[in-house]
Every structure is written in C-alpha cells, then in structure tokens.
C-alpha cells in the first residue's frame, strides 16, 4: 500500500509534507508533489501536515480522487 497525492495539491504545493517525511519520498513534480510508491513506508506523517488535505492513503481513495492520484503517481518512475 502507499499514500497518494490528490488534485488539491495542484498549484498549491505547500511542501509541508516534504518536511515531515522520514524517508524523503515526496518529490516536486512541477505544479504538484508526488509520493514515490516504492519508497513510501505508510507512516502517514504527511497526511495531517498537508494544509489542503491532498494526501490520501490508498484505502481512502474514492472514485473521484483515484484517477488523478494514480495518474500522478505513475508520472514518477518506480
């Protein structure tokens, strides 16, 4: 499992998540951040750190949020 960045991050990219990630697996993808799925350890520290609630655990993805989340994650090589 892993955590995903969803669309509210776009053009906000606050980057607080990067300051709390203990394995530094959150990267800058231009207009928004991305979590490297194969590096994420699922600690969840980034979830409350995000001011726009953009980071979501895989099990909390909805039909509305999943398409962006998966497409975004796929843009990062793993």
């Amino acid at each position, binding site marked *: 499992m892993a955590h995903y960045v969803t669309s509210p991050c776009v053009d906000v990219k606050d980057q607080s998540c990067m300051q709390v990630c*203990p394995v530094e697996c959150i990267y800058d993808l231009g207009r928004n951040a991305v979590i490297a799925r194969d590096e994420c350890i*699922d*600690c*969840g520290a980034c979830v409350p750190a995000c001011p726009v609630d953009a980071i979501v655990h895989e*099990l909390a993805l909805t039909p509305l949020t999943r398409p962006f989340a998966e497409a975004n994650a796929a843009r990062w090589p793993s």
Partner: protein
Amino acid sequence: MSVRPGADDPRPGPRVAVVGSGPAGCYVCHHLLRRAPGSAVDVYDALPTPFGLLRYGVAPDNPAMKSVGTSLERILGDERVRFFGDVRIGIDVTLDDLLSRYHAVVLATGAETSRRQPIRGDELAGSHGAAEVVRWYQGHPDSAVRPDLRRHTAAVVIGGGNVSVDISRILLTSPEHLSRTDVPDDVLHDMRRSRIRRVHLVARSDLSHLRATLPEIAHLADRPDLAVTLHGDQDSRDDATPVASVVRDLSRRARPHAPYHLAIHVNQVVRAIRGHHAVQAVELASTMDPDNAGPVVELAAGLVVQAIGHVAEPPADDRLRSRDGRIPNVQGQVLDTAGAPIPGLFVAGWAKRGATGVIGTNLRCAAETVATLLDRLDQPLAPRREVDPPKPYVDWAGWRRIDRYEIRQGVRREAPRVKQRSRQQLRALAGNTDDLSEPQSTTDMRSPHDHSIRA
C-alpha cells in the same frame, strides 16, 4: 572519538546533550548539525541500544517502518555525534551534571508509562498495561512481565488507538510469520505455545472516532489469516471517516476458515474484570447506556491489556514535573514547576507533545526545538569541560557489534535480525569481541532468558 575527561573541548560550536536516541532525539541531532554545523552532540540513552521506539515500539511485523533506521543510523553515525548507551540520566548522571557540561540539554525521553484506569479487578493476574506487553514482545531489556498466553483462547485489549491494534494483531500472528521478524527467541517460544486465537478490542468511541490511523488498519487488511468482526456499532450511514469504512469493509469480508479472529467492540467500556486470582472474564457496558440499565455483556478471556495512552516521565529532578502527559514547555523550552523557563533545558518528541503523532511528526517537532535552542544560546559560548561518563557505556562501535551479531542471528530464522533481550548480553556483545562467538545456546529455541523474566 574518545572521551578526554577534564580537558576543555576544542570544538567551536555549541556542545549539546540529547537525552534519548529514538526518532525525536535523532531528528534533534539532524537539525542541529544542519543549522549549526560546528555543533558537537552527545546522545545519551538509558538502554545499551539506540533508536528508542523504532526498535522497541514499531511493531515487528512492520519492516517498512523499521527501514527508517537506515536514516537514523546515518544521523547517529555522524562524526560530530557520540553515543553513550546504557547511561541513565537522573541515576547514573544527574541532570545538573549535564546542564553544567553542555551549552544545552534536550530531553527526548518519550512517553513510556502506560495510562491505567481504575477498573474493578485490574489487580488480577493477567491484567497488564500496554507498555508491559509491548516490552515483552519487543524484547525490551527492562521487560518485567511475561504474559500468560496459555490460560484462555481469548484476550481483551482496551483502547482504540494504534498501540491497541498493534498488540491485538501481534497476539494474533502465527509463529511462522513471527519467526521471520526480529522478535527475540523467548517471544517466539511463548507464541508457539500460545492458545490465543481471538482478541476483543474494546473502544470507548464510535467507529468514526477510533484513534487508530488508516495505515494501522491497513495492516489488518493485509492478513488473509485474520477474520475481523464489528460489535456494538452504529448504523453504517453514520460512518464518517475512511477508517470507519475500511473497518466495516473488513468486517464484511467472509473469512470462515481464518484461524485468528479480531472482534472490534465500539461504544463500549470495560466495567469490571472478573476472576479468582487470575482474569477469567470482563464485563462490558455500553457508553450509550450510562445507567447500566441494559444487559451486561460478558467476554471470557485470560488476558486483559489496557492500551489507553502513555504519559511522559521526566528524569528525576525537583524542577521537573509532567503535566497532561508531557513535560511543560513553550516551543521546546522546558518550564519548571512554577512555569519559569529552565535555562539550557529543552524537550522534543513525545516528551514535548504527549504520546501522539508518528515518526515523521518528530522531524518538524525537532526543528522547532532546535530553532528555540539556537535562539536562546548565550553568545559567545562559554567553554565547557569534557564530560566524564560514570561507568562503562556502550559507544557507537559497541552498538555496531550488537547490530552485526543480531543480524547474523537472523539468518537461521530468515529474519532481518533477532533481538537480544538481556542487558548483560547486550553489554557483553558491545564491549567484548571475544564473546561474539555464540555467547549462549542460540540455536536452542528455549530462550536463555526464560529464567530471568518473571512469569
């Protein structure tokens, strides 16, 4: 680096003592060395081994989380950092000693004491606090309790947070699975003989207010040998959180042949623990029935664990008292019992915030404490005399010897390592390379430590 007692230290930056080498203490080092590269940091730990709750808190079946150890190791392995393991502040060294030898002292001592609620029957054998049980299965050197897993097929774990879920899940893990984790041999021995197949997790809150996090619940979803059921619950239309819907989905998953069963009871409190000398059952009452008018639900069980939170205990010092489970502070500056700042004394991690938040939370928490610390330093820095550790301690090279030994012991179990429990053995492994060759009968599954732990 060797210690030169009495000599003035020639290094230019602040000399800082960090008490506690868990994630919070390590992240204090990390930020200090980044913001003040000339710093010299001495990290003290009451245990012979570093990493605190990463080693003794993160559940053994969560190897991904344990991988944070790689980055913590890099921090403590920095040449500007020294490790003094097996040194207790307030006992072996006083806090005043530290304050006089360093420009600043940071307490990163965590929150180690289990909260206990007065429940009728709590004094019965088989009733434990969470920390006791966690210390047992984590192989903590100071573990004083060895839970009896053979008395009954069911156990009750009170609390709806991550620790409660961890304890429940570990009690319901097969010895085959556990043998591939880092648990000590004596734990594996006990789990092979455990009769526990069902754990009742009893939470006061409703499903949408469980304190457990989604990643924690996700670990339950990863277990095909575990059936989950839900009791005392509200209407599913009231589910307001991802945790609530995932737990409900789990409970709808048909697992008729699963050997292990986790029963999650929400909106319930344990009203009494019953038994003669030892736990035999608990009585549940609904939180929605304050007058106890409804029928009493009774669960048979041989083990009860209270996992309802932890509180910080500061090192022995007249000026320090914990309040609301943490050491009173403003942005990491420690306050005395009268509310005045104690010069040079800071706090980070659970000791600062209370027992809440995950490993990464400590990164930002430590950054705040380090900013406060650097802001309060008197410039120019007064010279400080070198510390004089009071007894043999475990240094970084000693930990590396323990580390290599434990990793080698893991090979026979296909485990990342096998933790060694006893303080004596950890000391021997750290200090005496001659003792490295099989100090005790390690191929024997009956643990050499069996006799040192009170049953």
